[in-house]
């Protein structure tokens, strides 16, 4: 037998050991949390640092004279004649007027390259809206080309070798001159939110992709929420446990882990090849993402239903409610917050999904903003992928800008999930 003192000494020693282990474990935990936060901060800093510029765009202020000879080539002021005018030439003439000393075809071409092709379209739109402008002069801000914009944002500088950079020394001189006169400045880039995709970075916007994503997600939500909830209710409340329900359960859990590109292949094979649905359409994208989201929603909904205490069901059954009434009056209202949270998280995943959409052709270059479920469209993450693949320097900025918009959507959706959970959760 040990004496009480010996026991005390042993305990003391083991206590020290336990304390050390505990504090060590605490530090591991802190380190892990710190690393996590560190990487998130690095990621966000990187994306925001690269992408914030995409919300501002360079515009050049021109004194535009709508020369009738250029605007209406056949001399009549008809709409048809106005539509055939060379408005880009009007813009070019206005820019050349600012630098009368520039001569020679090659030099003029360099000067013209500061302007975006969009300048001509913008002027044409103005004249079409107000034919009275023909023959008059007005001051207009028009879009500058992507390289001009990059120089304005300090991403093309003289520090680079002239051979290797997209702008010549002379072009940089003109840009500086324009800037000094206040005729070239960065303004809010509304085009980024209102334009569809474009080969020209300065004209490219995310509206088409956002619309495509919304149509796709709408299909996904409308299909996956009711189907998922109905499946969960049936499996939890009505189906008797048998080999079949076990099999279904295992398969649902497996489906949740299937790589998303496999769902894309399935969508291609079934929806497009067998059912003949249009390619590149939000309808098909939505169907594919529904397949992908269903397991998530079913699993979350079943967990929410399981969390409803059995005593509530017994209480309702005990006073003579039918099984259907138990579900609709008691189980569903109590499980709904959990179901909604699961659905929103599933939707957020679907919003960020790229791979299956590549398989069904939603990776096409689509300029028009889609107007319906069967129009060709892309989605936001696919747009990110497309832009990241483009060689122009200005697309780097656009890519990060699109990622910021995508992340904003995801944060809002996850925030909504948290809010719903806290708001609707009832205690019993």
């Amino acid at each position, binding site marked *: 037998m040990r004496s009480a003192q010996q026991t005390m000494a042993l305990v003391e020693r083991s206590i020290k050991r336990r304390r050390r282990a505990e504090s060590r474990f605490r530090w591991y935990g802190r380190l892990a949390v710190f690393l996590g936060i560190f990487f998130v901060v690095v990621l966000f800093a990187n994306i925001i640092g690269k992408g914030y510029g995409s919300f501002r765009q360079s515009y050049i202020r021109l004194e535009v004279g709508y020369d009738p000879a250029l605007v209406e080539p056949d001399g009549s002021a008809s709409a048809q004649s106005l539509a055939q005018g060379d408005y880009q030439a009007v813009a070019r003439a206005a820019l050349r007027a600012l630098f009368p000393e520039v001569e020679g075809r090659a030099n003029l071409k360099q000067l013209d390259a500061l302007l975006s092709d969009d300048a001509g379209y913008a002027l044409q739109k103005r004249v079409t809206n107000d034919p009275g402008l023909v023959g008059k002069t007005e001051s207009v801000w028009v879009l500058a080309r992507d390289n001009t914009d990059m120089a304005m944002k300090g991403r093309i500088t003289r520090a680079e070798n002239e051979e290797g950079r997209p702008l010549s020394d002379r072009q940089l001189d003109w840009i500086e001159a324009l800037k000094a006169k206040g005729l070239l400045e960065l303004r809010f880039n509304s085009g980024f939110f209102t334009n569809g995709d474009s080969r020209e970075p300065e004209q490219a916007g995310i509206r088409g992709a956002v619309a495509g994503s919304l149509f796709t997600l709408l299909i996904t939500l409308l299909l996956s929420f009711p189907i998922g909830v109905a499946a969960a209710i049936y499996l939890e409340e009505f189906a008797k446990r048998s080999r079949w329900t076990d099999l279904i359960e295992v398969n649902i859990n497996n489906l949740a882990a299937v790589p998303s590109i496999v769902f894309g292949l399935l969508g291609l094979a079934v929806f497009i090849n067998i059912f003949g649905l249009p390619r590149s359409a939000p309808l098909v994208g939505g169907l594919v993402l529904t397949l992908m989201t269903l397991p998530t929603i079913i699993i979350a909904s079943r967990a929410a239903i399981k969390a409803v205490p059995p005593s509530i069901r*017994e*209480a309702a*059954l*005990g006073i*003579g409610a039918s099984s259907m009434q138990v579900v609709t*009056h*008691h189980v569903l209202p109590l499980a709904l917050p959990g179901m909604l949270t699961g659905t929103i998280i599933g939707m957020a995943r679907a919003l960020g999904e790229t791979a299956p959409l590549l398989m069904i052709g939603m990776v096409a270059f689509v300029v028009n903003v889609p107007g319906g479920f069967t129009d060709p469209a892309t989605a936001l993450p696919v747009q990110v992928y497309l832009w990241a693949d483009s060689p122009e320097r200005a697309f780097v900025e656009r890519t990060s800008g699109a990622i910021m918009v995508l992340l904003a959507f995801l944060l809002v959706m996850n925030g909504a999930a948290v809010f719903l959970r806290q708001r609707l959760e009832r205690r019993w």
Partner: protein
Amino acid sequence: MVIEIETLRPDLSGNLGEPMTAPESLTATDKTTVAHKTAGRVSVDDPIMSARQVNVYYGDKHAIKDVSLDIARNEVVAMIGPSGCGKSTFLRCLNRMNDTIENCRVAGDITLDGQDIYDRKQDVVQLRARVGIVFQKPNPFPKSIYENVAYGPRIHGLAADRVELDELVQTSLQRAGLWEEVKDRLNQPGTGLSGGQQQRLCIARTIAVNPEVILMDEPCSALDPIASAKIEDLIDELRGNYAIVIVTHNMQQAARVSQRTAYFHLGDLIEVGPTDRIFTNPLQRLTEDYITGRFG
């Protein structure tokens, strides 16, 4: 062994009422193997519910063995016995709450006013409206007090309009002895009440449907003695209108509230009889051992 006169009376259902002499060897230790016949008289005149040779199985487990018992009108029957003896299982057979348990199989006849409640034509919804149940743990819906009581009448269409429903809610709460305490906060959640109040709310919810029989599964086991006393008083008052079957672990409670007592042991109904006789003069050794606290 004392044999009561009552137990010698011939019984409607054959020899069920015959006294049963406990074998000398029957003790608390080898009780499991003895095939049992119930001592005392299981039948009553004009029963509202009647169970004959009821057997319940949970999968392979034989939970209730050949139990026969009648429930009289305006009477409280207490079911006592050690944990796991099947008294709750038997209680839940009476309004088919066992239907919700998978693997549970019920054999035998249980009738309500002469009608077989396990008949294929019997609608469980209707049965449970006639045979209400109050559970061990108070389980009000996470809704307002008013909604808790109004739910049953609403789904069964018992009130024609709002005024009638209001009245029904009020009388039910009054009968459950809860009206005075909650009349000013009917719109507050039922889950915000104290445990005893919640249980009385559950009783109000049950009687709002106006059942003929009320089953109570250890209704006081989660309550303090004062709340329990209130429920006991309530049970005594309700006896005027309903037949009540109560499962309890508390023998004093059984003695206080019931007119007849049934003692269950490992799925067998060992003994049935008037409560005062069971507690003063049990026919069976097992019953005596249990009520004197030798095991249980």
